């Protein structure tokens, strides 16, 4: 924007500490911003406030005991994390999963994705100064959370998947409730279009702001809606299909410019696609068992396994190495938000402070997932 700001006298510059407790950082993230007036000169995210050594916890106890931890990294979208972990264990030990369980996994995961995107939508618009939409998104979110609570037992930190299936089968009220919810959500999207997508203030605040081009996205290893917003149609559900996703028909939405507005459009379209997936999965879901019997003590054989799923924010990868005992020898989690956060430094140089907030919001950061 204004050339030569860096050469101005040093006393015109100042540092601004955003966080660790700031509503726009959505968690305990500290961002040290070097400012010149209202312009950002440099930006340095400082992470680690929420570090709970999840990986070490996984390496120091039997693998079953790590299941609740998986839900506590990405608290907004817990099930893809859990799916990646149980898949790694299943591939390692050769435990088979009943088909009904796989369908249940897909349905609950997609519901979880919609929940996560709704939370993001409300919070993002709140960052931009629009207060109303968060009330509507939280209303929608509650309806889906009620369904998930009935199935998984909790509203946020679901612990539903097990190696070899899921904890419990759904009851008779599940299918009608989900169908009613899909119908309701479809009508709500029209409302969001009117309220948000066409809103002139929203467009002016997000269009051509925080442009991530393809090259930059690939360089930083960005995944999820942020990558797809930059025009690269990479979705683990299509690229390395897992579970029953190959049998379901859905599109991978992409953006063109890679700005905040495109990332918004991609996420909203993803919610629509998720509803499509859930509808098809409900149609095709067979009856039968939801969990195979596994021996009480299940040792992890020597060797290692990687398993990736598509979370609401990007690729979630679990690497598990076994050494013949129940406890994993090494456990590594690759969380999408860390890569998505790392490009902030390059992206936000010479930006207005208000645009920085919009850009950070559009990356959909969940800080406990970055820190782990």
């Amino acid at each position, binding site marked *: 924007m204004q050339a030569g700001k860096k050469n101005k006298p040093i006393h015109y510059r100042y540092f601004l500490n955003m966080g660790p407790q700031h509503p726009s950082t959505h968690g305990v993230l500290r961002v040290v911003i070097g400012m010149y007036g209202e312009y950002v000169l440099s930006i340095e995210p400082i992470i680690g406030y929420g570090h709970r050594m999840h990986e070490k916890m996984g390496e120091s106890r039997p693998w079953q*005991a*790590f299941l609740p931890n998986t839900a*506590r990294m990405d608290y907004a979208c817990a099930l893809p994390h859990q799916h990646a972990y149980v898949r790694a264990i299943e591939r390692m030990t050769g435990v088979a999963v009943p088909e009904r369980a796989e369908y249940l996994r897909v349905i609950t995961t997609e519901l979880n994705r919609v929940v996560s995107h709704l939370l993001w939508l409300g919070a993002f618009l709140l960052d931009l100064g629009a207060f109303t939409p968060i009330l509507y998104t939280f209303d929608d979110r509650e309806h889906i959370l009620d369904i998930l*609570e009935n199935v998984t*037992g909790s509203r946020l*930190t679901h*612990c539903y998947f097990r190696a070899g299936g899921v904890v419990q089968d759904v009851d008779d009220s599940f299918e009608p409730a989900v169908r009613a919810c899909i119908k309701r959500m479809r009508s709500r999207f029209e409302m969001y279009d009117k*309220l948000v997508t066409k809103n002139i*203030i929203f467009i002016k605040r997000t269009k051509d702001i925080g442009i991530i081009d393809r090259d930059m996205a690939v360089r930083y290893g960005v995944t999820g809606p942020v990558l797809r917003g930059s025009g690269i149609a990479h979705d683990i559900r299509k690229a390395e299909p897992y579970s029953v996703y190959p049998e379901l028909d859905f599109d991978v939405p992409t953006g063109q410019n890679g700005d905040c507005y495109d990332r918004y459009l991609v996420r909203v379209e993803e919610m629509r696609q998720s509803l499509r997936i859930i509808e098809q999965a409900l149609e095709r879901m067979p009856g039968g068992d939801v969990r195979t019997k596994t021996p*009480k003590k299940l040792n992890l054989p020597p060797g290692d396994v990687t398993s990736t799923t598509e979370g609401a924010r990007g690729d979630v990868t679990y690497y598990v190495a076994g050494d013949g005992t129940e406890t994993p020898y090494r456990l590594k989690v690759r969380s999408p938000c860390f890569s998505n956060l790392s490009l902030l430094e390059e992206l936000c140089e010479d930006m207005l402070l208000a645009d920085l907030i919009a850009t950070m919001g559009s990356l959909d950061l969940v800080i406990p997932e970055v820190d782990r």
Partner: protein
Amino acid sequence: MNQYFSDLLNGARSLIEGFGVTLKALLSPPVTVQYPRETIPVSAGYRGHIELIIDEESGSHRCISCGTCARTCPSRCIEVKGEKPEGGKRKELARFQLDFTRCSLCGTCVEVCPVTALRFSRVYGQAGYTREEFMIDVLKRAGVQK
């Protein structure tokens, strides 16, 4: 200049449309409940803290104090102690303590119990002033008289 006026026009239209949405919401019935005075029913699958199942026939719990739940618990928050009564053959449950401050409600204890003596309670939205309120004496709570 043309862009400026078209922005102005489209912008005004978009704002009016948006206000239409909020006006509609204003006139529709509220979706929230007045929480402390009103509550919504707890869903069937909800997991509260664990409790002992009381058999209707025997009027007692089924726990054999084997301690499998305490051993498998990821957070080590269950303490089970069995005592052999004088002249008795089998151990009887003497103490079943749950440290709910550490419990993550994963449900592993309920799954591993060999005699299905445990289930989730329906206690919703627990809040307290002291840490001691979350040290739950599960056996005492079950109210079994030996």
